[in-house]
């Protein structure tokens, strides 16, 4: 069997899945790191569903976080006012997100690029401000509380047998639920983009008119992408916040949205997996960069940084980067955009998944010129031959 690069990809996928499953053990069941892992997965779902919208269909929506919040608020209100059980509310919330996504998706149909971005920003901000202002209905800035899921007994027992440390801390069930959702959402989106809709998504992104001329239902395609990605965002939001217990409107700030976008772009917004991995990578590095452990000898020379917004903690032996870690991240975002427009991770995946080598443009151009030199005469000759006006071809 001939070795193909795609095997590396499969091996890496398997490795990643195993890593995903064993992660809580790898971090020694430390609740903090399990929580970080769970949050990273939450962001990964958001980033990859955003990439489904932006990367695959070319709709640059800034309302993704708003949809996340919309779903969560809907679920929370269903539980609070309608007496839904958490799992029923989850379904209800996702459906409501879908309906609103459908409406916004239709409204956005006629808007392109920057207009779409502006419109979705407006929608997101209006939604956030209304949620914040309608204190009686949404809890306002206090946020809305959501109860945790309770698993049915049999499932709990089953999970305990599979995962012996299921009860080691409260975040383990949360983590595994999130991981399950992550795999399911990614698998769903992956299958979706591999299906005909995926082809249609990208065809519409590339050239709407041409796609329409080939019979692609442009409206349905664009709206479908909008609805699916909003629903996934809503789903992730509902599940995440059920475990966190509270959603606050500040979660839907544009600043948070830009974090998601940055994650997707750095990972590669043309690729679901790239965006997801980007989100995981960035969330972990941000968490780690918050305090960088350094030897005291080094730290002593860094004390001047205290005047620049860092905090050098000699006692704990760490350099706290505070805002500056975000600066580095912003710079990375800009450089990625400028020099690696496909992101940092997805080109690797693409390279591993590619089946045939690319003929470079320069090579082909040369070939075309060679072709000219050789059979220019021939070409004209044959053309003249074919071009006998007396004999119309039939």
């Amino acid at each position: 069997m001939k070795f193909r690069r795609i095997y590396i990809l499969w091996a890496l996928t398997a490795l990643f899945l195993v890593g995903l499953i064993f992660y809580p053990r790898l971090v020694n069941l430390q609740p903090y790191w399990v929580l970080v892992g769970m949050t990273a997965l939450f962001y990964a779902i958001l980033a990859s569903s955003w990439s489904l919208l932006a990367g695959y269909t070319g709709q640059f929506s800034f309302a993704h976080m708003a949809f996340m919040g919309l779903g969560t608020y809907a679920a929370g209100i269903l539980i609070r006012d309608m007496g839904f059980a958490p799992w029923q509310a989850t379904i209800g919330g996702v459906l409501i997100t879908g309906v609103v996504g459908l409406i916004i998706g239709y409204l956005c149909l006629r808007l392109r690029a920057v207009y779409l971005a502006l419109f979705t920003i407006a929608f997101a901000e209006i939604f956030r401000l209304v949620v914040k202002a309608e204190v009686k209905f949404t809890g306002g800035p206090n946020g809305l509380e959501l109860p945790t899921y309770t698993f049915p007994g049999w499932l709990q027992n089953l999970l305990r047998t599979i995962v012996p440390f299921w009860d080691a801390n409260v975040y383990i069930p949360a983590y595994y639920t999130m991981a399950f959702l992550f795999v399911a959402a990614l698998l769903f989106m992956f299958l979706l983009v591999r299906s005909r809709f995926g082809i249609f998504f990208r065809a519409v992104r590339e050239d709407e008119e041409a796609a329409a001329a080939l019979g692609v239902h442009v409206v349905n395609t664009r709206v479908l992408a909008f609805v699916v990605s909003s629903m996934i965002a809503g789903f992730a939001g509902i599940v995440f916040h059920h475990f966190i217990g509270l959603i606050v409107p500040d979660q839907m700030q544009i600043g948070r949205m830009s974090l998601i976008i940055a994650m997707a772009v750095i990972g590669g917004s043309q690729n679901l997996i790239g965006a997801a991995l980007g989100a995981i990578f960035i969330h972990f590095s941000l968490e780690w960069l918050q305090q960088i452990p350094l030897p005291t000898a080094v730290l002593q020379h860094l004390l001047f940084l205290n005047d620049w917004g860092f905090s050098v903690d000699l006692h704990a032996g760490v350099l706290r980067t505070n805002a500056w870690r975000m600066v580095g991240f912003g710079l990375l975002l800009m450089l990625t955009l400028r020099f690696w427009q496909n992101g940092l991770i997805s080109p690797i995946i693409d390279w591993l998944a590619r089946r045939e080598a690319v003929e470079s443009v320069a090579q082909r151009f040369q070939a075309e010129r060679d072709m000219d030199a050789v059979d220019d005469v021939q070409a004209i000759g044959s053309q003249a031959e074919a071009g006998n006006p007396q004999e119309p071809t039939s």
Partner: protein
Amino acid sequence: MSQNGTIRLEVRNVVKNFGGLQALAGVSFTIEGPQLVGLIGPNGAGKTTLTNIITGLLKPTKGEVWFNGRRIDPLRPYHIARLGIGRTFQVTRAFRRMTVLENMLAPGLVKHPYMSRKELEKKALEIMKFLTIDHLRYEMGSNLSGGQQKLLELARLLMLEPDLIILDEPFAGVHPKLQRTIYGYIQRVRGEGKAIILISHDMESIFTLSERLIVLNFGEVIADGPPEVVKEDPQVIEAYLGRDDEEDLI
């Protein structure tokens, strides 16, 4: 193909105004059955506008377009495409960030949503082989040369299996060698019993290939008939070469 097996496109007195400008001033013609119709006219004559109206990208200000007994001018472009009118664009519009095979699958999946991917790919490969782009199947659209992109567009069209094909400048900017392939393509499609509207500025190919020529000028049909006749039509010559009696202008 329509139920009774014939193809019939009727353009009935189509008028199109852009603001104050009249692009089409009442164009009517009928194309019936398998036929290769050349559509020519000097720049600004309204050829592209007419194409866009037939394929639904533009709505006519007045007039109707009927295809196989169905009025299509109010329909959306994808609907018209599904009814069996396919077109290419003057400037190539390959999907640049999709592989050639995926480019082919898009219309294929429109036509046969539930066909297995393998079968569809096989079908696509056949067409690509005929158009000599099969070796590029995993190549990104943007990596193709201009000529190859034209071929890809034509190949895509076949996946849609349209009854009526509108080819807008298929030869522009294409290497002679590839031009021959396109000639072959047109002849093959013609052989399959489809109707073709060929728009080209390349007089040679137009006169060679078409059975019937429709000449547009200033949004009106100024001639309609076999190429030999149209070629000698004084109005056509005037449209292209200017009028002899304008000597006194200078």
